[in-house]
């Protein structure tokens, strides 16, 4: 026990803490500048100086640890004098341009000078002059205001791990800059500007437009970009969101955000929002009233139901819809239309993967807290770059790596390049063979745990390919494979991080089985990367063709009956069509009416031409979206939707945390659930909800996994399912699963030539970021990453235009050289419609029902003069 006295107060601690933390515990405020809760103690600014008895010099409270019997005084004359002096030194160079500084009003230096310091320095010499740097599209640097506390550099190095900022020069002539000295070449997380205590690093998105004292309200909510679900605060003025900021004590992101969360909020204020329903009359979409639109939908859907039966109607939900919207949507389809043809974007990869792992391994194996990643003793990443798809989760991987935890990546390492021990990039067939070889090698090193006999039987019975063949096909030496297997075998509690690209491929079902075997052998925990904020939620809500709310199979009569009784509806007993199957059915003319809520199918599904064909074949298409999307162009009725910041609701993140999204601004539309319940009324199904809370309480009644929760109750962000230990899901039997004969994969794959894979982009999140000017300013167009060897062969430089062609057509993309890539794999970003989905062939995996997102045997040419001749065509292809 350590007992110390601070300003006369006695206080005891179990473990040594810093004087600063001790003072805080005693309720005593010590001013700081370079200290920040997220960062390690630094002791650079000398503002937290305190007097310690028997120590001749003043001590920095932020870095000095307490010891037993210490007597500390925090506000003596000597201390106050020293603080005043420090502040005066800072004011030698810090300009007093507060009136037009964006930081004014929330500037820590301003506050401290007001409390302790002189208003200005006594220095007669001039201040240091540097022009403000406006070269970057998003971040403004003002070196004059910088006080060199190095919070930004430490944030960038130690926490974000991007190492994009550093100090140039020495002493009073030093300043902070990115490597280029001008524009940033970084991840644009903006965490540097968040920790800057003064106005040296500011955001351009609200430049000279933000005044903290003019904000009308601050709304705590959850980010709507990816499946991590970071908490953020939206600052609102004049019914418009001026800034989104994290709070250090709030949510699982603990004060951090990524580029999308910090800058992507501006899609809320994007000009081309839909504000009235549109209806197709004589081939043209015209503005109509809500009543007209709703009546039209009701009439046409009833007509189609009468003529073609309920199963000719289908519905698709986006992973951006709230739980409440998704729940009402499936209730409408099951209860009013009478079909189970409901699926979501999560049905493409996240859903099948989760279902498979939970089925074959154990319930909840994919439900793990994100913070757990940094506590694991090994990390295996496959199918996507976590630092791009779920950046705040990716930081956990980096933080583990810094502690010495080995990180092994299969696929492009992306933001984990400096943090991974090994990265293996190859085509998708080779990945399957590689995984099989790993499972076989690990099997020899680790005993089977004896927990799941079914899976052990599969693992024991599986015939791997000879190591030499596997190594030849993957392009890595046998030693690489053996070493990797050895490294994995040494892990006792690894995190297995899985992205959707491993599922969305021809051999996706095999990959899942091998990954399950790997997880089982290594006693791992699975993290499924989720590109949308509510993929988990829409699954939980029953937006699946064969599952009821709470993930219970609809084919089991007792579950169906219980659900029918609680809701007072009749649910058809036969499972409906999955997302991919619906698209196929539409293509074949079996789906006559389709209701798409929040999803842009043309850009979201591989093979855009196939999807366009499917949409054209649909007799009656309803699209409900915030923007006039590519899919909306084919619609018969377009309904405007509200964004996540304009309504109440809840999101369930990838770790199953159910979080509240609050209304920050008034939108120019009606909540989706309200619109659907209006349509439902015409079918005779009265839902009678008055608010999102009403819907949530019904969800809590019908769903075992949301039971006893209320919308107000989840506001603390601590509601994670499964909880209280009870079984939540029906334990499904594993039948008919067997590990594939890997030799046949090698023979049948036929993967030769250049293989194009999808690249999930850090600055873009499927199609929502298309409407964020800030995110577009960082990366305005999609690009193709080419390895050096291939690029040299084609004599392609960064920024050159290249044409990527398959049988399905060709696209023109801007090239980026990437030294990591081998010569037979290229990566294409898919945002904004210019990506590979234009030239992917429609292939659906029969087992996972996931459409493949990769394409093999592409031809890449450099576009020379042709680009100029056919510029319009190239532009139209690039622009989608």
């Amino acid at each position: 026990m350590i007992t110390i006295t601070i300003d006369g107060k006695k206080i005891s601690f179990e473990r040594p803490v810093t004087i600063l933390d001790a003072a805080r515990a005693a309720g005593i405020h010590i001013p700081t500048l370079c200290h920040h809760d997220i960062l390690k103690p630094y002791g650079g600014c000398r503002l937290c100086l305190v007097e310690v008895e028997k120590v001749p010099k003043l001590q920095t409270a932020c870095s000095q640890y307490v010891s037993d019997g210490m007597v500390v005084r925090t506000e003596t004359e000597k201390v106050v004098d020293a603080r005043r002096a420090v502040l005066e030194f800072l004011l030698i160079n810090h300009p007093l341009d507060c009136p037009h500084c964006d930081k004014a009003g929330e500037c820590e230096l301003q506050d401290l000078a007001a409390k302790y310091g002189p208003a200005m320095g006594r220095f007669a010499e001039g201040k240091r002059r540097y022009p403000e740097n406006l070269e970057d599209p998003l971040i403004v640097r003002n070196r004059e205001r910088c006080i060199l506390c190095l919070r930004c550099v430490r944030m960038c190095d130690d926490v974000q791990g991007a190492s994009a900022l550093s100090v140039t020069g020495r002493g009073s002539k030093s300043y902070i800059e990115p490597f280029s000295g001008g524009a940033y070449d970084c991840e644009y997380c903006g965490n540097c500007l968040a920790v800057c205590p003064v106005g040296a690093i500011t955001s351009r998105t609200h430049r000279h437009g933000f005044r903290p004292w003019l904000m009308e309200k601050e709304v705590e909510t959850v980010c709507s970009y990816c499946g991590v679900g970071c908490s953020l605060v939206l600052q609102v003025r004049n019914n418009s969101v001026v800034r989104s900021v994290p709070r250090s004590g709030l949510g699982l992101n603990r004060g951090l955000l990524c580029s999308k969360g910090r800058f992507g909020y501006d899609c809320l204020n994007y000009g081309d929002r839909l504000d009235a329903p549109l209806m197709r009359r004589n081939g043209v979409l015209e503005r109509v009233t809500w009543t007209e639109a709703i009546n039209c939908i009701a009439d046409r859907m009833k007509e189609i139901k009468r003529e073609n039966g309920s199963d000719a109607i289908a519905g698709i939900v986006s992973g951006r819809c709230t739980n409440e919207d998704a729940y009402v949507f499936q209730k409408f389809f099951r209860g009013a239309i009478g079909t189970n043809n409901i699926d979501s974007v999560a049905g493409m990869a996240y859903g099948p993967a989760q279902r498979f792992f939970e089925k074959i391994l154990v319930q909840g194996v994919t439900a793990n807290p994100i913070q757990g990643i940094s506590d694991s003793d090994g990390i295996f990443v496959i199918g996507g770059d976590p630092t791009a798809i779920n950046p705040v989760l990716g930081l956990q991987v980096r933080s583990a790596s810094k502690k010495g935890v080995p990180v092994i990546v299969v696929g492009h390492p992306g933001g984990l390049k400096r943090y991974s021990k090994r990265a293996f990039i190859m085509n998708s067939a080779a990945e399957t063979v590689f995984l099989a070889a790993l499972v076989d090698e690990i099997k020899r090193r680790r005993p089977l745990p004896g927990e799941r006999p079914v899976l052990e039987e599969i693992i024991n019975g599986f015939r791997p390919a000879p190591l030499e063949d596997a190594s030849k096909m993957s392009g890595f030496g046998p030693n690489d494979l053996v070493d990797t297997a050895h490294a994995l075998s040494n892990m006792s509690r690894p995190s297995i991080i899985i992205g959707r690209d491993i599922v969305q491929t021809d051999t996706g079902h095999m990959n899942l089985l091998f990954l399950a075997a790997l997880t089982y052998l290594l006693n791992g925990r699975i993290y499924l990367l989720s590109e949308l904020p509510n993929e988990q939620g829409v699954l939980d809500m029953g937006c699946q063709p064969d599952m009821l709310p709470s993930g219970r199979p609809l084919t089991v009569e007792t579950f169906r009956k219980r659900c029918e009784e609680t809701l007072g509806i009749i649910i058809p007993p036969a499972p409906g069509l999955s997302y991919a199957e619906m698209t196929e059915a539409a293509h074949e003319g079996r789906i006559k009416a389709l209701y798409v809520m929040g999803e842009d199918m043309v850009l979201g599904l591989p093979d855009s031409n196939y999807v366009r064909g499917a949409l054209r074949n649909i007799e009656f298409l309803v699209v409900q979206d915030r923007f006039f999307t590519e899919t909306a162009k084919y619609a018969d009725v377009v309904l405007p939707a509200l964004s996540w910041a304009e309504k109440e609701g809840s999101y369930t993140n990838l770790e199953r945390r159910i979080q509240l999204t609050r209304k920050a601004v008034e939108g120019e539309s009606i909540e989706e659930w309200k619109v659907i319940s209006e349509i439902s009324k015409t079918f005779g199904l009265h839902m009678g909800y008055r608010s999102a809370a009403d819907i949530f309480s019904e969800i809590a009644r019908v769903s075992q996994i949301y039971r006893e929760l209320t919308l107000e109750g989840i506001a603390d962000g601590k509601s994670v399912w499964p909880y209280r230990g009870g079984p939540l899901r029906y334990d499904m039997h594993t039948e008919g699963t067997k590990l594939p004969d890997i030799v046949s994969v090698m023979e049948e794959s036929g993967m030769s030539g250049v293989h194009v894979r999808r690249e999930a982009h850090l600055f873009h999140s499927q199609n929502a970021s298309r409407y964020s000017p800030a995110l577009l300013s960082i990366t305005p167009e999609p690009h193709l990453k080419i390895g050096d060897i291939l690029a040299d062969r084609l004599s392609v430089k960064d920024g050159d235009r290249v044409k990527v062609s398959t049988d399905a057509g060709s696209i023109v993309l801007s090239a980026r050289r990437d030294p990591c890539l081998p010569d037979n794999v290229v990566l294409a970003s898919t945002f904004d419609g210019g990506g590979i989905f234009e030239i992917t062939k429609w292939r659906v995996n029969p087992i996972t029902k996931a459409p493949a997102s990769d394409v093999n045997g592409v031809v890449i040419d450099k576009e020379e003069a042709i680009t100029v001749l056919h510029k319009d065509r190239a532009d139209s292809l690039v622009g989608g």
Partner: protein
Amino acid sequence: MREISITGGEPLTRKKTALSNKILRELNDLKRKYDNERFSLLPALYLFQREYGWLSAEALEKVGEILGVPKTTVKSVSTFYAMFRHKPMGRHLIQLCTNVSCMIMGCERLTDILKTRYGLGPNATTHDGRFSFLVMECIGVCDIAPAMVVDTDLYGNLTEDSLIGILERYE
């Protein structure tokens, strides 16, 4: 420890700062010398400066890439030290001491000569790219003041005539 080789990984000869086999070998030796790759940062920077005369942004990037140190860290370290040069230098570098002993012993006359004869002021390079001139703080040979270092050769007890004579030897 990662080996550097011309064949494996990224071809190092691609960029303008083409790396000779010699420098690669030396870098490999350096990396073997230290446990931590960061420790070889300063010697690696010296190596590059010796080879190219100065440290271009590309060179800094390359050093970072080879040692596995972020390029921003490399820049930060290299700009901290006054003897790393960050702009192109002439074929020969004159580093003339102007600190106390050399000043007393008349280094000012020498700087005047550089100005009048070669048109060379401090921190400048002649038009023909032959000489660059940097003013040095003490090079530690006060006994032979005034002194200078040309490239890696030390000269002391300089006079106007001896300075001109010495410089004539550097083409």
